[in-house]
């Protein structure tokens, strides 16, 4: 009896955490619980879908992703990643000479990705499990799904982060992780992976902001504003 009662309150807590995490305000721990729970629990998954819809209605948006089961895509992406990692490791042994000619910034990004490894894969994609909703296929056989998956958009995580709290700072990738596959990750490792992912993203934006400035300056003959804007990156 008492066990049933505590189970019930744990569920209530989980629902609360779910609501919080969909608002983008959950702690790492809460996220982890929700991700764990959502994988096991059909009811919770349906609830997540409803919350997502309500939230979007409140914010006045309609989501293109509402009918897309992202969690399925994410799982298969993680599954796929195991294979890719093994592949790219063996490839890097052979392709040493070709990697020498890539640009410096490119090398940095590659280094970062390399050191991120599986940790970051999980970190960067698994949050999507929380916001990916409405599991239309309740019996996922991962390997089969990975092969049959038709649309590209199924693997897209949706950005939930509220930007605008700071005007010029970075708001990186929101991350959680799937603890089923990565039980050994400590919060420190997770934070490290996240900071690397943030840094790589910022590096990427910086590189492309320069390309954009160049493009618009050469095109319009007005470089003043285009290049002045690059100073915004200096304090990051």
């Amino acid at each position: 009896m008492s066990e049933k009662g505590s189970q019930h309150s744990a569920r209530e807590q989980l629902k609360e955490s779910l609501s919080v995490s969909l608002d983008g305000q959950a702690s790492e721990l809460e996220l982890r619980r929700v991700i764990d729970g959502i994988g096991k629990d059909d009811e919770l998954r349906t609830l997540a879908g409803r919350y997502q819809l309500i939230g979007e209605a409140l914010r006045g948006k309609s989501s293109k992703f509402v009918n897309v089961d992202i969690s399925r895509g994410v799982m298969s992406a993680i599954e796929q990643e195991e294979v890719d990692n093994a592949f790219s490791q063996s490839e890097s042994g052979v392709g040493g000479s070709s990697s020498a000619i890539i640009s410096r910034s490119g090398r940095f990004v590659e280094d970062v990705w390399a050191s991120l490894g599986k940790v970051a894969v999980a970190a960067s994609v698994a949050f999507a499990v929380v916001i990916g909703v409405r599991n239309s296929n309740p019996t996922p056989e991962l390997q089969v799904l990975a092969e049959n998956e038709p649309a590209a958009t199924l693997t897209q995580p949706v950005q939930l982060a509220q930007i605008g709290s700071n005007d010029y700072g970075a708001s990186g990738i929101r991350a959680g992780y799937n603890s089923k596959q990565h039980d050994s990750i400590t919060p420190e490792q997770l934070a490290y992976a996240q900071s690397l992912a943030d840094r790589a993203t910022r590096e990427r934006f910086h590189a492309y902001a320069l390309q954009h400035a160049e493009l618009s300056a050469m095109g319009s003959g007005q470089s003043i504003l285009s290049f002045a804007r690059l100073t915004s990156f200096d304090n990051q």
Partner: protein
Amino acid sequence: MKKMQWITRKLLVLSLFVSGFVYADTSSDAGYLLERMAVSSKGLSFQGEFVYQQGAQLQTLSIIHQAKNQKISEKERILYLDGAPREVVRSGNELFFSSYNEGVTKFQHGSLLPVINKFQSGVSESFYDLKIVGIDRVAGREAVLLLVLPKDRFRYGYQLWLDRESSLLLKSVLVDDQGKIIERLQFTSLSIGQLSDDVLVLLNRKPSTVDETIHIKSSSAKEYPEKDVAPPDWETGWLPDGFVLENRSIRPSPVSRHDVDALIFSDGIATFSVFVEQDDTRVLSQASEKIGALSAVSKIYREGDQYFHVTVVGDIPLGTAERVAVSVRPVKMKP
């Protein structure tokens, strides 16, 4: 008491100016000003210093611009005066960006890009309300204040102070749909006219070493299709009204060893670029960031076994950039 007098006098002067300009308050005049500004910024030689403010940051920069004439091509040098030394040198179809930290990057265009008429009047007036609202003084020069207000939420608004004599841009304030100021650019000194010889020497000095050269194959949207630039196998499913493709190019990616498709879109006032490249990292991630006036969004799409990384950067609201990024999709091959 003295202060009171000053304020009254200022008001009086201001109202005189405004009333004096009421006759000119039609959008076609404003459109003409914008057009003239675009022409002047290319066709006049000038040098000056300006400040750029974004958030809590204030930066000082200097610019020297040499108009094109029979003997020489258009040249420009922008020097960042604060923080780590950086400079931009633009000369004909080459552009050098030198940074103390990152070395010299040279952008080499195969051919001279056709000019996008930024602040083109015809395009702008369908999507922005243009209003001349008064006269002010910036950098010791008389300036006409022009409001450029967007008609929808897909773009930002501008307040522009244009030199009364030449229509050169003296000050620019970018505002979002809440009326919040995002960035300010303002000249503190500007002299227009023939550059002195020592300034020209400065302008002709190109970086002696180049760490990285980016060769760009490009074609304007109008000349397309061109032989060496194949049409990209992707398309933008959604663009805000009024934005048209100005130029497409293929260049080596700054972040991977692939080539990247670079497309630039403009509505005559705002511009954004869409970059698409093959993604090897296989770390599926989406990120968006607002860096001052620039919104940047990165996103992955997948076609078969291949992943592609989409990056959208431009002076447009983040929501617009995200919508564009999400809409990028592979072009269905026709059998």
